[in-house]
């Protein structure tokens, strides 16, 4: 609902009352009632500034003219008429001064209110594009202008239609040079349209431009716009810095949280590892202790002694493997690469050697080696450990009847790819990225079979020490394939 101002009615009523009083007083131009014209003039000036004073003053002149002019016509410029005219002039001057002061005061308070509103708006935690849109809406509401646009040097822009400043346009030039430009008319509309373009000045120079289109842009308006541009520029720059700091703090928080979580995971994994390692160490030690005691305290037939010695030997090897893994891991955590003694190896022989080691698995272990595959340049012990680890895992986590494939084939001209595939329960997708991490054991693995969580971490380190790569693919319920590459010997 449109709010109708009561001011024009009040001023008109005051004018009418005073004029009627003078008319009733024989329409005498020297009537003391003429001094009451000060009321509509001052009311108009106080309420609407200079514009109100001019309108009220015009009303006084128009209404007083029929009183003064007949007297001038009849008697000429008498002292009474001159006094009335002087009174009129003084009232108009008074109205002008009061109106000008009122206008200036109002402009000053509006300017301060606008700057405060801009400051509050830019203190919000919003994206820069959102801030620009809100700032544009604020300027449209407060400045009484037709249109406004804000352009930043990084291309961000807020305009009515969303259009951006074209290269070479007035907006782009002002944003580049920092010099304000004011045009009397754009020539684009039926009615004249003033254009003002002022730079948004940051600490290091222009950071953008504020463009306004208005019915009028007087000298005071232009000065205000330049000040506003400087203020908005600094405020925008501060807002951007604050936003950047907030983002940096948030990123830092996230990183700290991630690192803390990671450390907690490692700590938990180490605790788990200590428990597992204790168990893994205790098992062969218990066997060694038991069978050693038996051999030391009792007499056995030769065949039985050989059997017990074989058990002692296997358990000792298991213990050695575990200690080797621990030593390798310790070296890796210190950042030292494993020491390799590289030589030319035949992949087929390596695979067959490993298959021989696991011959107790019987026909489950299927070996496939592409013909004429060539030799790889690798450390025999390291490759042996890699394959033993992978095959051992595959057999350990697969059902007793599921086959395990050990495959070697070409992988481009420079590498040979080895793959170990099992038909086990598979690994969940979420666990796959972690399977090569030290101490990590996939959910369900701990209960399925004994293990330290070190094997795959050591395997990965050994493969990478050769300049190869390793990856894992798995599907729950279908099985897992771990494949790695080793470099071929130079031809």
């Amino acid at each position, binding site marked *: 609902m449109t709010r109708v101002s009561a001011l024009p009615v009040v001023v008109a009523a005051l004018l009418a009352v005073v004029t009627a009083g003078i008319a009733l007083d024989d329409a005498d131009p020297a009537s003391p009632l003429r001094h009451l014209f000060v009321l509509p003039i001052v009311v108009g000036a106080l309420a609407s500034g200079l514009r109100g004073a001019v309108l009220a003053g015009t009303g006084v002149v*128009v209404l007083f*003219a*029929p009183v003064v*002019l*007949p007297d001038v*016509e009849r008697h000429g410029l008498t002292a009474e008429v001159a006094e009335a005219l002087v009174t009129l002039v003084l009232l108009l001057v008074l109205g002008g001064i009061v109106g000008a002061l009122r206008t200036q005061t109002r402009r000053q308070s509006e300017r301060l209110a606008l700057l405060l509103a801009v400051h509050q708006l830019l203190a919000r935690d919003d994206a820069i594009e959102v801030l620009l849109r809100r700032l544009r809406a604020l300027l449209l509401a407060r400045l009484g202008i037709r*249109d406004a*646009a804000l*352009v930043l040097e990084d291309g961000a*822009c807020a*305009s*009515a*239609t969303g*259009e*951006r*400043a*074209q290269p*070479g*346009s*007035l*907006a782009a*030039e002002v944003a580049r040079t920092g010099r304000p*430009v004011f*045009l*009397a*008319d*754009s*020539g*684009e509309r*039926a*009615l*004249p*349209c003033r*254009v003002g*373009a002022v730079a948004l000045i940051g600490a290091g120079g222009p950071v953008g431009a504020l*463009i306004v*289109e208005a*019915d*009028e842009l*007087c000298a005071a308006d232009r000065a205000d716009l330049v000040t506003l541009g400087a203020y908005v520029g600094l405020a925008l720059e501060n807002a951007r810095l604050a936003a950047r700091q907030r983002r940096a703090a948030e990123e830092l928080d996230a990183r700290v949280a991630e690192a803390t979580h990671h450390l907690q995971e490692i700590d938990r994994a180490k605790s788990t590892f200590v428990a597992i390692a204790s168990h893994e160490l205790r098992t062969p030690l218990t066997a060694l202790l038991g069978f050693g005691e038996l051999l030391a305290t009792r007499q056995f037939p030769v065949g039985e002694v050989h059997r017990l010695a074989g058990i002692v030997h296997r358990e000792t090897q298991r213990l050695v493997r575990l200690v080797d893994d621990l030593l390798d891991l310790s070296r890796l955590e210190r950042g030292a690469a494993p020491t390799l003694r590289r030589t030319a190896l035949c992949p087929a022989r390596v695979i067959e050697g490993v298959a021989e080691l696991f011959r107790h698995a019987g026909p489950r272990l299927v070996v496939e080696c592409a013909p004429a595959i060539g030799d790889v340049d690798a450390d025999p012990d390291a490759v042996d450990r890699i394959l033993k680890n992978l095959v051992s895992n595959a057999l350990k986590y697969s059902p007793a009847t599921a086959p395990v494939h050990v495959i070697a084939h070409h992988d481009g001209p420079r590498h040979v790819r080895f793959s170990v595939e099992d038909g086990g329960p598979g690994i969940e997708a979420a666990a796959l990225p972690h399977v090569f991490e030290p101490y990590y054991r996939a959910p369900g693995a701990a209960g399925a079979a004994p293990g330290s969580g070190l094997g795959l971490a050591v395997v990965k380190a050994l493969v990478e020490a050769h300049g190869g790569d390793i990856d894992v693919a798995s599907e729950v319920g279908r099985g897992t394939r771990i494949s790695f590459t080793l470099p071929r010997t130079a031809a």
Partner: protein
Amino acid sequence: MWALRHAAATAAVPFSAGWSEARVVTAACAAGGILAAGGVMPPEAAAVVGVAAVHGGLLAVALLWNGGPVAEAGVAIALLALARGLTALHPAGAVAYLAVPAWLGHLALAGRLLHLGLGRPWPWGPVGIGALAGVALALHLVACASRTLGYAIGVDPDVFLTAFAYDLGANVVSAELFFRGALLHHLWRRWSFGLALAGASAAAALRYCLDPFAATTELRVGAAVYMTMLAILNGVLCRWSGSLLPGLVAAAIFFACYRLLARG
């Protein structure tokens, strides 16, 4: 937004833009006016030439200055000359003056006078305010004229209708279209509205002060005062509403009241 697409240099429009044809018409009309005032023609012919040169000239220049075709300017001059000629033959011929606003109304309805501030949508609210302002100014005129110069309301209806038809068809239309529609807009595009209004209003008042029909000093003073006030009023109405129509209505009402005055 203009400033996002254009360079500053493209905004500069010379004051004389659109003057190539208007210059010729201005020169021709000035020559016609001088001839009419110079007494070298028979009085009736001089009256026809004078109306065509002054009112037709103002109207034609207003149309041409804002990019209208030469033919429309020619029609304006021809219609005014025809109306003055018919009036010379018989007072009722003054009705022919109404052909000018009718023709301009047709152009406005066709959207060809938008650049002069005439066309849809019609601002009926400001038109009402313009009518009230015209009435107020006319009442002031009547009050002052009756108190100072001894005028009173009362005039022969035939004389009134002839004079009012002339005002409506020639005087008001040509003054509003030229001084507000063309001159004020062109000045306003370069200066602040206050300065432009002062310039256009001074030009309008000067035109009435130089009118040969304002023979006496009191008429010239009256013309200067009231035409200035009317020009300011109509300029403000034009800016407020963006249309010439409220000013046209105010001026028509004012001149109607002026024509009602007769020496008592």
